[in-house]
């Protein structure tokens, strides 16, 4: 058992702490996200999944995201809410890493968690994230765009031009998707393992726990139960009520308009063909054109009549002189 603990891979350690810490902090952060969204002080651009992950997966993204946004010209959204969420995330993450870190130290390392573990783990992971994530972002973006153009040019070859569109899309996607996913997973594993190494380094200085397994489980289990449960329940309920009231007070009555930065592409559909309307319109046009035609014909007939009359008169007039010339 001791060997197993000592040989625990840094990736396992990193995942074992970051994954539960993320889920522990997420509900609290989401409550704030919701209020900020309702208040209209936070807008996300198209890649919502990414934006959410980047925002909520801190501490590793807390410093990395501004670096990526500024350095690599990647815009994820607008609004003071994003900055506010970052600020609120710091104490939440320190608390979450503290809770998870303490239980992890006891159960997996069988070591006494040192004081201020949450803060130590937070600043160290934030530092690792700030250096590693922009590199990851740059490499994955480059690899993805290169593999997309490579897959495209592959299918531009004469021998592959006959492949139907649906098949071509799926094969292209498989090619560039596999390459991009493999690179992303590899880099993520390296990143998590770096965090794991950092956690192991912190654990190496801690003193060993003396309790047996049952005793340790009881300890880490009780660590997550608040000392004053009534106070905790009242606090959580109170915060929930305040946030709910804030949410309903801020919720727009009508559909909120998207922010200038983050407008969705408008779906425009050509007005559909309505047979009855088109028939009525055509009939009206036919009646109108018939009336116009009749009017033109009438006018022409009148003009012709006039011309005829004039002609007769002219003829008469012209004929008159000879008549007048009659003796």
């Amino acid at each position: 058992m001791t060997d197993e603990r000592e040989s625990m891979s840094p990736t396992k350690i990193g995942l074992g702490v970051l994954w539960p810490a993320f889920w522990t902090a997420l509900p609290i952060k989401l409550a704030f996200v919701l209020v900020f969204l309702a208040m209209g002080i936070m807008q996300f651009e198209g890649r919502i999944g990414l934006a959410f992950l980047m925002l909520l997966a801190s501490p590793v993204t807390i410093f990395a995201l501004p670096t990526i946004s500024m350095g690599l010209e990647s815009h994820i959204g607008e609004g003071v809410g994003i900055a506010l969420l970052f600020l609120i995330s710091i104490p939440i993450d320190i608390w979450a890493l503290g809770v998870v870190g303490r239980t992890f130290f006891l159960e997996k390392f069988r070591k006494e968690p040192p004081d201020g573990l949450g803060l130590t783990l937070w600043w160290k992971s934030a530092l690792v994230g700030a250096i590693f994530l922009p590199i990851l972002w740059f490499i994955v973006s480059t690899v993805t765009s290169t593999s997309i153009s490579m897959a495209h040019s592959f299918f531009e070859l004469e021998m592959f031009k006959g492949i139907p569109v649906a098949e071509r899309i799926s094969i292209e996607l498989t090619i560039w998707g596999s390459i991009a996913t493999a690179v992303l997973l590899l880099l993520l594993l390296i990143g998590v393992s770096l965090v794991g190494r950092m956690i192991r380094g912190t654990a190496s200085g801690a003193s060993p726990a003396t309790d047996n397994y049952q005793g340790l489980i009881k300890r880490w289990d009780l660590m997550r139960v608040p000392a004053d449960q009534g106070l905790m329940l009242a606090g959580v309920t109170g915060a929930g009520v305040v946030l709910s009231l804030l949410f309903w007070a801020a919720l727009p009555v009508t559909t909120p308009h998207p922010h200038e930065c983050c407008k969705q592409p408008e779906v425009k559909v050509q007005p559909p063909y309505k047979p009855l309307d088109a028939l009525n319109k055509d009939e009206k046009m036919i009646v109108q054109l018939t009336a116009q035609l009749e009017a033109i014909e009438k006018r022409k007939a009148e003009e012709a009549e006039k011309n005829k009359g004039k002609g007769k008169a002219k003829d008469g007039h012209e004929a008159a002189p000879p008549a007048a010339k009659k003796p």
Partner: protein
Amino acid sequence: MEHSSIPSTQPTAIEKVIAFIDERVGLKQMQAKMLNEPVPGGSRWAYVFGSVLLFIFIMQALTGILLMFYYVPTADHAYASTQYIIHEVDYGWFLLSYHFWGSTAMVVCVFAHMSQVFLWGAYKKPREMIWLVGLALFGIVMGFGFTGYLLPWDQRAYWATTVGVEIMDKTPVLGDFMARFLKGGATPGQMTLSRFFVIHVMILPAALMGLAGLHLFLFRAAGPAGPFRGTPEEIKAKTDYFFPRQIWKDIVGMAVVFASICALAFWEPVVLLEEATPDPGDYHPEPEWYFLFLFQLLRLKIFAGEFGQFLGAIALPGAFMALLAALPFIDKDPERNIFKRPIALIGWIVVMVAILLFTVSAIINREFLD
């Protein structure tokens, strides 16, 4: 008159009401039965999906009822009443958008729940019946999505339904009858809308409530499967009651899902296209996102022609569902650890990757159509 030296504590009004009900229906016994269920290996986040699904269904029912106060299920007024809900009714946009994204969340959670049960090997003896009822519930959730999609009566709704019914038409023997029954005429119209509405708000909710009750009953009868790894001592040491830790995790799961649905409703509120007509105009018909992979699959040349379409639309999905139903009876090995069941693990990965690949392909395919 005797005065007792022990201070008497008079029950409060609430305690009296609880005692009154308890005496008649056995409330405390029921509560103990519901909350004191032992969870082998202790509470886990992986177990929250069932409770989360129940929560989403309750929220869908609530928002659905509120929407029904304004919605008119007729071909003449369905579109206008939906537009009225979006633009005129106070918070109507939010209710409709929540209901729309709630259906998506329900499909995602059903997939997650089924995946968890499959990967944990929790469908094996003695839980075969739970798995079978779960599959029926999966069908009902898909049915909810399919029937609800038509109700706004815009071009997207109309053509998604037309495509869906055409796919259904390819089923041998029953296909023609089912398609004619659902459409109620040569083309989708008033009868289609009425039938879809009744199925969506009456038949499916009733079926879901009944089957969900049965699912829970069977689950409680068989008990939770517990983790697939760990020594019996470890599992025993960590075993806990359903209350409070698993309940707490379930509540957190529900809160996360609620907040995510609300965030999606803000990010992309429901916007209708033009009113439904039998002419698609420039609109390229396609089904709801969770049927997109099947739709894209049918675009492949291998599935061209009458037989190919039958193969892709009916035979393959039908065979897959039959395989899922037969799974607990085929896979009788008591081993539950997914890392010791390579065929199951590879099969799950292949299915998930295929669904993802064809769904994304369908999205990319839109560019070629435009």
